[in-house]
């Protein structure tokens, strides 16, 4: 049994196993910890064997869940031991006990580096493994180059290189700059030719991480990925040991297809054809087999192929083939496949237009809502929610209601909220909406938040047609013996307002209504009582002719509560009592409530609010935004003569759209701001009983309002940066297509925003490269103007159009560039104050008789004047607190964010020179970052920011930015926002930023014309 080879360790483990209870175990552990502590402290050095043994024991104790707050040093020190056995233990235990933020790790960097650059292969492996598993930013700064060397080295064996590839992946996640070196993309492409499958698998993981961040440098890898996929899935060309249950490395297949999904499209027709051939083969050739593992592996590949097909937006035929497959999957017995079928159907709905085909499977999906497995039920719920529209809303919502009574606690709130939202969004008529919500309250009152019933009241108040119906319904529910308190609230409110509309129906005389309501009074809490009192007063007013008996009863109630300890109740009782004696005045005061102003649904707002409690952490929020806007409720059954329209627009989430012209995107931006502040406008709506609550709900919008006032007119240039890219700069007019830029100018610009050297522009004759250095508020560019052609480029002109906040000096640009020559032009930049405006380089030259002129944005962005600064908790929070409120601290909820996982977002931030401090914010879904901004006016200014993300919906987040300068705070906030919502253009870009080319017919004899041509 004791295979461990360390007797002491085995004995200890046996002892622990023999403990009868937790208490004994604790005693044994404490004893051992004491022992280890004294051994570590003793003057007498420990033998390597002993050290190893104790360190293992520590790890074992740690694994059992006990705090081990000492001895980390001993574990770390074993790393530098000369012999393999100790070193091995040192590395493994360190990587288990510590995480990347631990201080001791820093002490080990040197030893680790020595092992990596040393000649001993086994040591290299140990070091790479540990760095790959827990290496942090500092490791990435000091080791990345060495790791790269190992990966590329032809003399290293595969076992080292595959570890180096994954280690580099880790370092890249910690700091994307590690691969920001020239030619890295070429190397990646070369690495994909690797024959060793272990290395290839690791390299593919690395590629997935790289392209998930930005694919544009890696186009050359795309055909190689397709070839690998062909090799595996079509030719089955892999060594036997790399097949898994007869399938050629399913993992590599999955990863390869994942990498392909990060490219917007496959343009080369041959590559595309080969890819689709393989995909078709996978889609058609995957059968269900008995062996579980084979089945899983082949379906892992199949599902990845499905996502790739969806991503590539294949022909209609292939899409319907996919839906057919998914339809099959959601009906199979194997729960994993059923789960994934549902999940992928939901994904499919988001990317393509297959709603109608999916609707055919509605019955089957509804069956899954009753599955014994909660994971599957959640998927089914999400899918139903996503596929719901006006045609099937009735069926789906009724299913949800039915399921509500059976659903377990964990799902009820989500279910109730979803049902309420769908009912509101897609109601075919308002009566049905009222039915649904009342049923919802009846069945799951505990899970129906106040907003839901407030919403009912708003609708009924604003729709006269609905009032009698709603009152009658409320009256019906009051007959039920046990009522949820929310039901008491909503029905007494409705009856108070509208019961007089029912007066002639049986059981609906004011007196009867009062007495049935009054029956509920003893059971309700102090929040409901005021509503009841108001309802009584209203019923009394509406009773025609006055009923003295009723009047006495109601007065008695008021009387009773005149001395109530609750101020709200007491006040109402006293006031109503006095008012009742005023006669005519009472009728005015207690008249029907006026219509509510248009207002966004608090419900949907709640579903969007990233702060909502964790109870409904699912796709709900995303969906709330993505669902196509339906204004069913607003239009249904409303004859136009019916006065003001009912409550508000239902579509709220404004996803910053990529529009093709500046005006639209600008107005969109304003619009979304207005939307944000909607609710805050008018809430002084008199004595609505729950006003306070509504007020609170709306108050969330406060900060957004502050932002709006800050909003200043932005120039076209800035606002485009987010989405529209470069279109504004080069009016696409009067051009012949003779000189086209090579590559996407906008993408090149974006790449340069994150790094300091690269190609800014390229066409068949000229390449402009830049290299930049930044120090505080000064920057220095060197423009490399390279003539690619074999004849001279003439009339070269470069003109800087600096924005007002930048002082730019461009050195003299030579008039001609000789063939195949490169010219360097230094350019100095001084940043005067914070601004997101961009400098534009107006560049032109003559090639033969062709004039090429192009306007290029210069990547002297705001982030270039930022410098990393990392703060500790003690430094960060006092600063954070000292800057409070606008204009120094601004907060905004940003929607339509490019979905990034937290590490990806942290990477993005770090590459923008915003230093992310992991662990500073106790909430793991938040990012906290700091940076120093430099400009002449502000000097060095510390900026702090916090991003609160929502794990369930990566497309939205809340951002808070603060600094000591109001303009800086605003500019930085907008800048980060632009980076986050920047959506790369789909690849077949209709050639943005085309250079203006014109070939004026020059008469060689007319010197004036020649001169004009040159100018």
């Amino acid at each position, binding site marked *: 049994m004791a295979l*461990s080879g360390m007797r002491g360790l085995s004995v200890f483990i046996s002892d622990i196993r023999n403990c009868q209870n937790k208490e004994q175990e604790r005693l044994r552990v404490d004893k051992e910890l004491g022992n280890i502590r004294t051994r570590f402290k003793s003057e007498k050095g420990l033998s390597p064997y002993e050290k190893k043994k104790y360190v293992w024991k520590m790890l074992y104790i740690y694994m059992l869940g006990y705090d081990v707050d000492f001895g980390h040093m001993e574990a770390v020190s074993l790393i530098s031991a000369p012999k393999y056995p100790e070193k091995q233990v040192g590395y*493994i235990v360190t990587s288990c006990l510590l995480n990347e933020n631990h201080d001791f790790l820093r002490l080990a960097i040197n030893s680790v580096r020595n092992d990596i650059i040393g000649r001993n292969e086994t040591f290299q492996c140990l070091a790479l493994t540990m760095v790959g598993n827990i290496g942090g930013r500092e490791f990435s700064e000091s080791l990345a180059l060495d790791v790269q060397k190992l990966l590329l080295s032809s003399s290293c064996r595969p076992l080292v290189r595959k570890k180096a590839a994954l280690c580099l992946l880790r370092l890249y996640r910690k700091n994307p700059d590690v691969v920001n070196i020239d030619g890295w993309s070429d190397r990646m492409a070369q690495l994909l030719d690797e024959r060793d499958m*272990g290395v290839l698998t690791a390299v593919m993981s690395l590629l997935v991480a790289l392209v998930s961040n930005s694919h544009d440098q890696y186009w050359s890898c795309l055909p190689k990925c397709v070839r690998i996929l062909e090799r595996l899935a079509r030719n089955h060309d892999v060594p036997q040991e790399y097949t898994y249950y007869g399938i050629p490395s399913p993992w*590599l297949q999955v990863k390869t297809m994942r990498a392909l999904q990060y490219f917007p499209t496959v343009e080369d027709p041959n590559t595309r054809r080969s890819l689709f051939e393989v995909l078709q083969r996978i889609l058609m050739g995957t059968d269900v087999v008995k062996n579980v593992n084979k089945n899983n*592996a082949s379906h892992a590949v199949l599902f990845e192929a499905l996502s790739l097909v969806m991503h590539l937006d294949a022909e209609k035929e292939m899409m319907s083939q996919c839906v057919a497959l998914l339809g099959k999957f959601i009906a199979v017995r194997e729960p994993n496949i059923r789960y994934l079928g549902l999940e992928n159907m939901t994904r499919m709905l988001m990317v393509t237009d297959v709603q109608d085909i999916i609707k055919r499977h509605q019955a089957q999906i509804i069956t899954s809502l009753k599955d*014994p497995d909660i994971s599957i039920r959640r998927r089914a719920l999400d899918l139903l929610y996503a596929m719901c529209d006006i045609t099937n809303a009735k069926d789906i919502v009724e299913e949800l209601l039915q399921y509500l009574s059976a659903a377990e606690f964990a799902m009820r709130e989500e279910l109730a909220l979803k049902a309420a939202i769908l009912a509101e969004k897609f109601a075919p008529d308002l009566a049905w909406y009222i039915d649904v919500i009342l049923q919802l309250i009846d069945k799951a009152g505990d899970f129906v938040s106040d907003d839901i019933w407030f919403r009912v009241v708003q609708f009924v108040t604003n729709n006269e047609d609905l009032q009698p119906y709603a009152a009658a319904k409320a009256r019906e529910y009051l007959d039920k013996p046990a009522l949820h308190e929310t039901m008491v609230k909503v029905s007494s409110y409705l009856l108070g307002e509208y019961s007089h509309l029912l007066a002639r129906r049986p059981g609906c005389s004011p007196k009867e209504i009062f007495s049935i309501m009054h029956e509920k009074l003893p059971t309700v809490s102090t929040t409901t009582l005021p509503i009841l009192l108001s309802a009584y007063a209203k019923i009394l007013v509406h009773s025609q002719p006055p009923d003295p008996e009723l009047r006495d009863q109601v007065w008695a109630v008021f009387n009773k509560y005149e001395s109530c300890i609750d101020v709200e109740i007491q006040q109402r009782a006293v006031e109503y009592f006095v008012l009742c004696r005023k006669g005519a005045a009472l009728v005015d005061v207690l008249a029907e409530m006026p219509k509510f102003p248009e207002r966004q649904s608090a419900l949907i707002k709640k579903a969007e609010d990233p702060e909502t409690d964790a109870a409904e952490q699912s796709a709900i929020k995303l969906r709330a935004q993505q669902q196509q806007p339906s204004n069913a409720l607003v239009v249904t059954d409303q004859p136009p003569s019916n006065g003001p329209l009912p409550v508000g627009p239902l579509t709220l989430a404004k996803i910053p759209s990529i529009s093709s012209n500046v005006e639209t995107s600008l107005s969109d931006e304003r619009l979304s701001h207005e939307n944000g502040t909607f609710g805050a406008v008018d809430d002084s709506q008199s004595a609505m009983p729950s006003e306070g609550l509504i007020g609170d709900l709306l108050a969330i919008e406060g900060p957004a309002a502050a932002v709006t006032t800050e909003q200043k007119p932005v120039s076209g240039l800035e606002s485009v940066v987010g989405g529209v890219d470069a279109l504004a700069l080069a009016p696409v007019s009067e051009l012949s297509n003779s000189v086209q830029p090579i590559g996407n100018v906008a993408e090149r610009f974006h790449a340069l925003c994150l790094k300091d050297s690269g190609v800014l522009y390229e066409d068949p004759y000229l390449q402009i490269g830049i290299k930049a250095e930044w120090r505080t508020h000064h920057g220095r560019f060197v423009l490399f103007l390279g003539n690619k052609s074999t004849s001279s480029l003439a009339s070269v002109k470069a003109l800087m159009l600096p924005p007002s906040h930048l002082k730019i000096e461009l050195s003299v640009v030579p008039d001609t560039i000789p063939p195949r020559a490169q010219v360097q032009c230094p350019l100095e930049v001084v940043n005067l104050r914070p601004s997101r405006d961009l400098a534009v380089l107006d560049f032109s030259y003559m090639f033969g008789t062709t004039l090429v002129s192009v306007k290029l944005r210069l990547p002297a962005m705001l982030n270039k004047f930022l410098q990393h600064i990392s703060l500790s908790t003690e430094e960060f929070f006092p600063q954070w607190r000292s800057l409070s409120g606008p204009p120094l601290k601004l907060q905004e909820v940003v929607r339509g964010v490019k979905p990034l996982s937290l590490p990806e977002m942290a990477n993005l931030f770090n590459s923008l020179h915003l230093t992310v401090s*992991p*662990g500073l914010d106790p909430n793991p879904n938040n990012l906290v970052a700091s940076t120093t901004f430099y400009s002449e006016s502000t000097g060095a200014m510390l900026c702090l920011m916090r991003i609160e993300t929502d794990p369930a919906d990566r497309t939205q987040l809340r951002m808070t930015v603060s600094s000591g300068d109001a303009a800086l705070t605003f500019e930085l906030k907008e800048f980060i926002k632009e980076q986050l919502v920047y959506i790369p253009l789909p690849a077949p870009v209709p050639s943005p930023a085309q250079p203006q080319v014109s070939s004026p017919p020059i008469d060689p004899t007319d010197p004036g014309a020649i001169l004009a041509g040159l100018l």
Partner: protein
Amino acid sequence: MIHFVLLISRQGKVRLTKWYSPYSQKERTKVIRELSGVILTRGPKLCNFVEWRGQKVVYKRYASLYFCMCIDQEDNELEVLEIIHHFVEILDRYFGSVCELDLIFNFHKAYYILDELLIAGELQESSKKTVARLIAAQDSLVETAKEEASSISNIIAQATK
């Protein structure tokens, strides 16, 4: 990527933990407690995926042990499920029909093997043969070092007699 790997026994005892994303000690304990509660209570014929805190946990039970791996929402679940099985097959080959006790008394071996299988939360090697070969090589390195040490101490012992 795989954020962490957990091996939990049916009684809720932790047999192995490996964290590829930074979690503090406190968070680690909390994660283990929460997940044991969710996973150990699930019935036998349900699917192998649990949605948890905006992420997914893929798990599979082998005899008395639950193997769990936490991944991102958009990752391929079945692929990870088979990584688990791949790991189990390698353990099985190394220990010769592995059982929980093997992993209790040789937990360090399980860590060595896992390190040959995953790095940075990504699959490193999909060939069982290669992993077995590398682990054997490691074992023999340790063995050789031990022999050397004992022969040196013999020499010293004899010399100082």
